[in-house]
Structures are given as C-alpha cells and as structure tokens.
C-alpha cells in the first residue's frame, strides 16, 4: 500500500519537475507562469494593457497571414454557391432596389427632421463619420463571437465604437490596439443591447445566443403578447452605449407551447462580413445666436453660462417630472384596465341575475296557472257538456283558467 503511494508521488513529482533533455523549463514553472499571467490579466493595469495591445497587434497580423489560404478556400466555396443562385437573387434584388429607391427619399426627409429635433432637445449635436474597416480575423469560435478589424486607436477608434454592416448594427468595439480592434458581435452571449420593437414601440433588451440570432429578454410583463411576427427591432439608445435608431433585425415568434420565445433574425449575416463601418462620433456644442454675439464679453458669458446651468437644471427637473408623470400614467392605465375588467365582470353578473329573476317569474306564473287549473280547469275545458269551453293547451284555455273560469267575452 505504502509502496503504491510512493510510486504515485514519484510519478507526480517526476511529471511536474523533471525536465527532458530538450526542455528549458519544468512544467511546474510554466503552470506558475500561466497562473501569474491569468492573475495579471484580471487587473486593468496600464503596463499590462500596453503589453496585451502589443501581443494582440502581432498575433492578429500573423493570424491574418496564416488564415489567407483557408480564407481563400472558404471564399471560393461561398462564391461558387453564390453563382449558382445568381440569377434568382438578381431578380429579387432588382425588385427590392426599386422599392428601396422610393423609400429612400422619405427616409432622408425623416432623417433631417430627426436631426433638427435632436438639436432642439439637446444643446449639442453629434456628427458622425463612418470609417471603412477590413476584417482581418474572423474565427467563428463556438464560445465567443468576435471579429478583429484593421482600425485601432490610431484611427480614433474607442472602446464602445458602434460597428455597422451597411446601415445595420453588427456590434461594438471591446478592445482597442494601435492598429487593430476587437468587435464583440451582437450574437455573442455577453452582448446586451437596449432596443425598441416597432411598430408596437416596446422597449426591451436583446441578448446574443451564441448562434446567428438574438433573443428578446427583459421585457415588461404583460406586453409580450403585443409583439408580432416580423416586428422591426432597432436600437433605443438607452444607456448611451449604442446610438438610437439603428436597425438590427426582425422578430421571429417561436411558440413552444407553454411559452413564447422571441428570436431576432439579424439583418446582417455575421459569418459573411468582409468589410464593416466604424462610426466615429464627435460631440459638437450648439451655440445659439445670443452666445455668438456676446462671445467677447466674459462677464456676460459667465452670466450666460449660469443661465444655461439653470436651464440645464430646469431641463433635468422637467425630465424627471416627465418620467414621474409617465410612470403615473402607466399606473393609471393599469388601474383603468383593471377597473374596466371589474365593470365587465359586474355586467356579466347582473345579466346572469336578470336571467335567474326572469326564470323565477316564469316559474311563478306556471305555478299560479297549475293551481287555478285544478280549480277551474273543468269550467274552461271543452267537453260534451261544455260546448263553450276551449281546447287544452291553447292560449284561450290558459286565459280562461287565469280568469278563474270566466271567458274574456
């Protein structure tokens, strides 16, 4: 027993510490270095950030070069597949193009209106430039869904920069190096985007599933039934992580029997991305006419600043009040709905009771008729001796009985 334990200890010690002729480090040393690196990478130190950025820069470039043959084969495969459905797609695209051309004009008008309204709401406007970026690494890992683009801090890319495929949202930047950046795709499990579902105007959050679709989560109770098939999902801009109004995908309602699942089919196919757009946003203050005129006078400027501060505070208060009113409004709506439901229940109850009363009255009449029938039935019934009588069951007979044997005449 003791000898087998010794053997085990010897084997373990040998596995950890013994170096072969070619090995420069023992495995135990390498384990400690690995753990040290893991611990270091969990701290957000400046030195480590730079080191990581350096390693990432070199590795992403190498990965791009190494992936060239595989990417070539992959792209050839996809191109061949595309050619086989080329004509069919051409016809569909032509129709879609005609529709889109007509929609495009009204969209532009809406966009201008939107910009004007945003300027009115805030005292700043956002100007954005879209920067074309090439995807250099696109390994579809089963665990993490991300891509590497060839633009980094040198090109003013920042953490959180929104990334687009045409005008559709693809994800946001989560790691920035000097000339490369990592983009977390919407399909990643760690991706959460605040969205609006149109036309119902429902606020929700979509999360990635690790597959090529998203799932609507964190939706207010009771309003999920309003979501219909093919509803459009776009960013709401809540939390200021994503710009508002960027299209994401369409809702696909999957009924699983007991509950409904709301999938979001992304407009963009993340596995087919070659180039993407990174949106560089700059905040420009909107100066009103008064400020421009009084630019030279610092004292007046101070006054204007104070006024602006007051106005800003006032705006905040109004926003807060507005929010409160909205909440109250929501509560009132719920109360109204409940009351309406109660009214409807009461109406049903009253109707049922009326029915019972009516039945009771009929029963009373019947009993009265039967009682009188016993007494006066023989005077009203037509018989050999009573020629003036009536046939049993007729209205005249009933009337005669109810009149205690006296006819109407």
């Amino acid at each position, binding site marked *: 027993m003791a000898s087998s334990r010794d053997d085990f200890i010897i084997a373990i010690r040998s596995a950890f510490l013994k170096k072969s002729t070619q090995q420069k480090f023992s495995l135990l040393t390498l384990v400690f270095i690995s753990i040290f690196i893991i611990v270091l990478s969990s701290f957000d130190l400046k030195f480590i950030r730079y080191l990581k950025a350096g390693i990432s820069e070199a590795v992403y470039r190498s990965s791009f070069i190494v992936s060239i043959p595989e990417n070539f084969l992959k792209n050839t495969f996809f191109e061949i597949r595309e050619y086989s459905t080329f004509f069919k797609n051409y016809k569909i695209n032509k129709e879609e193009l005609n529709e889109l051309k007509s929609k495009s004009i009204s969209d532009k008008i809406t966009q201008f209106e939107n910009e004007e309204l945003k300027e009115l709401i805030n005292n700043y406007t956002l100007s954005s430039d879209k920067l074309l970026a090439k995807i250099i690494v696109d*390994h579809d890992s089963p665990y993490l869904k991300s891509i590497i683009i060839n633009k980094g801090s040198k090109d003013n890319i920042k953490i959180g920069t929104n990334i687009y495929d045409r005008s559709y949202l693809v994800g946001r930047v989560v790691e920035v190096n000097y000339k490369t950046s990592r983009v977390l795709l919407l399909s990643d499990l760690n991706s959460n985007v605040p969205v609006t579902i149109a036309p119902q105007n429902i606020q929700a959050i979509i999360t990635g599933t*690790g597959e090529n679709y998203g799932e609507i989560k964190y939706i207010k109770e009771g309003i999920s039934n309003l979501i219909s098939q093919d509803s459009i999902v776009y960013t709401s801009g809540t939390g200021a992580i994503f710009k508002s109004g960027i299209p994401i995908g369409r809702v696909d309602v999957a009924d699983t029997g007991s509950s409904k699942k709301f999938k979001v089919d992304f407009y963009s196919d993340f596995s087919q991305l070659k180039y993407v757009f990174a949106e560089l946003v700059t905040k420009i203050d909107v100066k009103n006419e008064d400020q421009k005129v009084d630019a030279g006078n610092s004292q007046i400027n101070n006054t204007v600043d104070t006024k602006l501060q007051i106005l800003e505070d006032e705006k905040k208060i109004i926003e807060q009040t507005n929010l409160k009113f909205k909440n109250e409004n929501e509560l009132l709506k719920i109360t109204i709905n409940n009351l309406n439901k109660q009214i409807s229940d009461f109406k049903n109850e009253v109707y049922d009771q009326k029915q019972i009363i009516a039945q009771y009255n009929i029963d009373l009449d019947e009993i009265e008729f039967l009682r009188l029938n016993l007494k006066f039935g023989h005077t009203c019934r037509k018989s050999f001796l009573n020629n003036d009588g009536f046939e049993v069951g007729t209205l005249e007979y009933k009337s005669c009985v109810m009149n205690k044997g006296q006819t109407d005449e």
Partner: protein
Amino acid sequence: MSNFKSRGFYIKFYSFLPIIVLFISVLNEFDLNYLKLEYFSFNFPFILIFFFTLKDFKNFDYLLVFLAGLVNDTVVGLPLGISSLSYILICIATSYLRNITIRPNPIKDWFYFLFIISLINSINYSILTLFFSYDLLLLSYLVNIFFTFILYMFFAYLFKYYLKGLND
C-alpha cells in the same frame, strides 16, 4: 552539396512540423466551425499536444506549447494565460501517464484523453465564469469535448504515420 543542404532543411522542417501545425492551428483556429455544422466543434490543439507529449516527441518544446496557448488566448479573445494553463496541464497529465505506463495501450490512452480534456475544460469553464464573469454555453463545451474525443483516434492514426515517416 546544395542538394544535401536542402535535404537537411526538409528533414529539420519535417521534424518541427507538429509544433508548426500547432501554431498554425491556434492562429487559424483550425476547427472547421465555419462549415456551420450544427453541434460540431473540436479542439485540435488538445489532440496534437496530448499525442506528441505522450510520445515524448523531442521537438515539442513545453515553452513553445505555452506560447501557443498565449497566442490562442489572443486570437479567441480569452483572458491571457487560460489556454496556456490548459495546454501545460495536458503536458503534465501525459508526463504522468508516461511515468506510470509500462505497456502503452491506445484505447487506454484514448479514455485517459477523455478524462483529461473533461477535467481541463471544467477548470477552464470555472475560471471564466467565476473569475471573469463570462457567459458560456455548457452544451458547447460538452459537444466540443465529445467531438475532440471522437476525432482523437483519427488524428492519432495520422500522427503515427508521421512518426513512422520520421523514423524511416
């Protein structure tokens, strides 16, 4: 003379082929995920490292394996050191198996491989979820372990041919 030199280069290249393939696979994520076969993924570096460290292949330096892990973390986007630790743990496991084995048996190696990759992926999953708050699908890990285990024998067969070619 030049012919002799070029032959020497090829022999050297051939003998370093496993480590070159390891670096290509971590840089390229060679796992056929882009084929979009549902529920299909496998970890090629695990198979490669397990096989060649088990055979105590002389040109398969632990330091290079460690560096390959760092490269893999950078490419995949995991915290640095996670894959290095996984790869080194495989090396330790194979070294231990070598020490206790008198008569090697491929089937025993195969099931030992299943145990080791399950253990390492569990450690991986635990570190990522507990310390780095990653959201991960456990099913993906299970599927990955299953296919890595299944494909081990196929690749082991290919690698044996490679070793045979090297000895010849």
